[in-house]
């Protein structure tokens, strides 16, 4: 293939031209005269980030198994190329064919984090597709969104023709068939959207009207088209072992952020941490058969040549066959000289033993996701981790030879007090004290304990979706309070505390629980020059401030305001299986500091059993 969308002059001028030439090992070429639907899949961030994403690889493989569909890829052009494409009016192109995306039938965009929203507009705009869905013509591609942020698609509803709510492996075939059928019948764009709206899990934003109370909250959210459903049901793969999985993932030339084989061993999580959206939207927890995982590991390493393999799940320690799988990988990957990168595991005797065997402990550090500094607050967030467990795990690690330990905390959690914040340095201090109880001759030098905190953002479809989020000032004040707390500790020289700016956190908070009123502000921020907001050095607070101001957006309305459980939330039209009643109950329990058992201990009746499978049924045969 010699065809390139960009000239030699451009490719020699920009950074990392390999981002734009396609032709990677395992990328799929098809004869476009023999296919019916051209689909371009987009991860709206830099190539190296997008190529590290498992979901796109799964869907790319799934689509390309369909004979009548050719799925290609596109990522956000880096600002250097972005500028050239605008100046020279070069339409954004797909990597495989190098053809303009505007010639495609679909542009699918995965929404993995809120801060990618201006990049979504960049991709649509550079493709020369109208930014507003209702302004698109018969020949423009259908723009469809999916991924975690589509569980509240309202802040970007104006820019999408469709959203796919749920796991991509289920109804895409139906959508392709509807598209082909409509095309054959000579149907219009609108007629296709109506057909699509009839498919479970597909949301067509323009088929709904939203009205607001004077205080800005939603008064009504109603379909305006008879094909649109009142509730959109989340799609879930229930036959998880037979779900498509890419045996030949695309291998990039340039180093991707995660350049390795990923085995998805489990989807969903039994834990029910109250801050975690993924733990709710991927319910019920489903495991993949361990024999299948072994087979995939060998085949994927053979097909990619990657030098590293890792496991993907929300909580790998809960995977039933983890000991068997790690044993197999250590044995077989060792023969092939393939490294094993372990995801964060619960620190216990088993995981320490495994880690000792796969990595150089002198160079590696252990990570504990403690999330909160006191037991009271850990109970509020339902993090099933006690101080004893943390101290015991750390002591085992110290005795095993680890001297570097990392802790993750969240600052700004609901009900948080100064005592909870002070608990962060105090817990770290306690571990340092514990370390020095080991006789000197058995220790390997000094201990180093690093705590880092992120700021808490309440997310839709969690018990904290009604909670008040801290303001930027509150966040920073709290972080400084924690930092001071560290200076007061006896072992402060062994302790380290890090936190980041809170400006992006506030933005994330606005978008996470935002509504349609945000669409024009996001559009303006983009038009005034915002892209790559997730990259702190490219984030322009002043442009966003102006956009919010011009559109009379009150930031506190979206972030700081505690919602009442009676309020119609922007995402209420989505049914994820887990009921609102359950979230209300969990919100109440959180405020009382009551722990809810995990799915394997006891079913708490969250509602996900409606999908008739996974962990909900495992122990009931």
């Amino acid at each position: 293939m010699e065809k390139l969308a960009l000239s030699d002059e451009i490719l020699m001028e920009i950074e990392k031209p390999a981002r734009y030439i396609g032709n990677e090992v395992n990328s799929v070429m098809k004869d476009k005269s023999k296919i019916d639907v051209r689909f371009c899949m987009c991860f709206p961030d830099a190539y190296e980030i997008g190529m590290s994403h498992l979901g796109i690889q799964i869907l790319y493989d799934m689509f390309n198994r369909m004979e009548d569909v050719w799925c290609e890829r596109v990522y956000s052009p880096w600002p250097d190329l972005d500028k050239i494409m605008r100046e020279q009016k070069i339409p954004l192109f797909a990597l495989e064919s190098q053809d303009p995306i505007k010639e495609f039938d679909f542009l699918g965009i995965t929404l993995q984090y809120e801060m990618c929203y201006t990049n979504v507009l960049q991709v649509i705009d550079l493709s020369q597709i109208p930014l507003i869905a209702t302004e698109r013509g018969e020949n423009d591609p259908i723009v469809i969104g999916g991924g975690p942020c589509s569980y509240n698609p309202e802040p970007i509803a104006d820019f999408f023709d469709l959203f796919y709510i749920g796991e991509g492996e289920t109804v895409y075939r139906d959508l392709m068939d509807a598209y082909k059928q409509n095309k054959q019948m000579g149907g219009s764009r609108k007629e296709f959207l109506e057909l699509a709206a009839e498919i479970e899990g597909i949301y067509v934003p323009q088929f709904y009207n939203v009205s607001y109370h004077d205080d800005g909250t939603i008064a009504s959210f109603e379909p305006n088209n008879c094909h649109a459903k009142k509730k959109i049901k989340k799609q879930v793969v229930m036959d998880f072992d037979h779900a498509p999985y890419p045996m030949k993932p695309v291998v990039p030339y340039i180093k991707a952020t995660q350049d390795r084989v990923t085995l998805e061993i489990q989807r969903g999580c039994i834990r029910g941490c109250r801050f975690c959206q993924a733990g709710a939207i991927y319910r019920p927890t489903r495991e993949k058969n361990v024999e299948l995982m072994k087979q995939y590991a060998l085949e994927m390493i053979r097909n990619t040549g990657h030098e590293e393999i890792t496991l993907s799940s929300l909580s790998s320690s809960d995977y039933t066959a983890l000991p068997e799988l790690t044993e197999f990988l250590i044995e077989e990957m060792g023969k092939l000289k393939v490294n094993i990168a372990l995801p964060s595991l619960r620190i216990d005797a088993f995981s320490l033993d495994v880690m000792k065997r796969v990595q150089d402990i002198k160079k590696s550090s252990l990570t504990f996701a403690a999330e909160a500094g006191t037991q009271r607050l850990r109970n509020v967030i339902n993090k099933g981790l006690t101080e004893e467990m943390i101290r015991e795990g750390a002591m085992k690690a110290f005795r095993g030879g680890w001297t570097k330990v990392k802790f993750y905390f969240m600052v700004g959690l609901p009900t948080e007090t100064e005592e909870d914040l002070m608990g962060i340095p105090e817990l770290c201090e306690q571990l340092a004290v514990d370390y020095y109880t080991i006789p000197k001759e058995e220790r390997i030098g000094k201990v180093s304990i690093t705590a880092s905190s992120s700021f808490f953002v309440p997310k839709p479809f969690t018990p904290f979706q009604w909670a008040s989020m801290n303001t930027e000032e509150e966040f920073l004040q709290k972080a400084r309070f924690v930092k001071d707390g560290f200076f007061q500790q006896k072992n402060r020289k062994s302790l380290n505390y890090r936190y980041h700016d809170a400006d992006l956190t506030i933005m994330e908070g606005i978008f996470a629980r935002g509504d349609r009123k945000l669409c024009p502000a996001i559009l303006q921020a983009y038009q005034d020059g915002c892209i790559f907001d997730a990259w702190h050095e490219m984030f322009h607070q002043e442009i966003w401030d102006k956009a919010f101001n011009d559109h009379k957006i009150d930031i506190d309305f979206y972030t700081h305001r505690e919602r009442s459980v009676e309020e119609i939330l922007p995402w209420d039209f989505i049914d994820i299986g887990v009921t609102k009643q359950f979230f209300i109950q969990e919100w109440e329990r959180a405020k009382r500091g009551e722990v809810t058992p995990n799915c394997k201990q006891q079913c708490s009746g969250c509602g996900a059993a409606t999908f008739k499978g996974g962990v909900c049924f495992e122990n009931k045969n």
Partner: protein
Amino acid sequence: MKIRIKYAKTGVLRYIGHLDVMRYFQKALRRAGLDVAYSQGYSPHQLITFAAPLGLGVTSEGEYFDAEMNSVTTSADMVERLNATMAEGMEINDIVALKEGAKTAMAVVAGSDYLVDFREGYVEPERFLQAVDAFYAQEHIEIIKVSKTKETLMDIKPFIYQMEVRDNRIYMLLSTGSVDNIKPELVMEAMCKYLQVEYQKMAFQVHRLETYMRNEQGELVSLLEAGERIS
């Protein structure tokens, strides 16, 4: 045992930089299932070394790397297995087993030859083609070499071993290696100066034909000469 692999890098792969080419072949060797030797330790890496890095945008049919092997099959079999997993634009042309005591490709590289073609819209190719002989006939070809601390005048003529017109392109055989490494772009820059034409990198499309080492007689021969095919 050490083997030497000759490959071509053409087409869109001219935009893959040297470090990425190295990573590419590490993965390709695994995909092909060749029995490459690894270093010891927690993150073992393959024992491979590359001959002479190729600039971004340059194509080549004469690239080399050496690999330490635990075991080998035949040259033909290994070429076939590697080619079965190549991306379009990468092609394995030959594999030889190096003789005992042979130095690494990187250490022995002494020359490379190139064809320089003209991209449309920059310079008048005729002017250049007609001037090649006269340019090369000069006693000295001086260029200004810019280093971090100073600018020095350098005569590159002794390192241009041959230069002529071939098929409406400029052929040149240049010194390559850790000392006296002369890039074809440098020669074209000197030629632009000679013709009093502004040098523009994009005016020329460079293609490397072969990479050479010196044999016992001091002649430039292909890097493959250091070994023999395995049959």
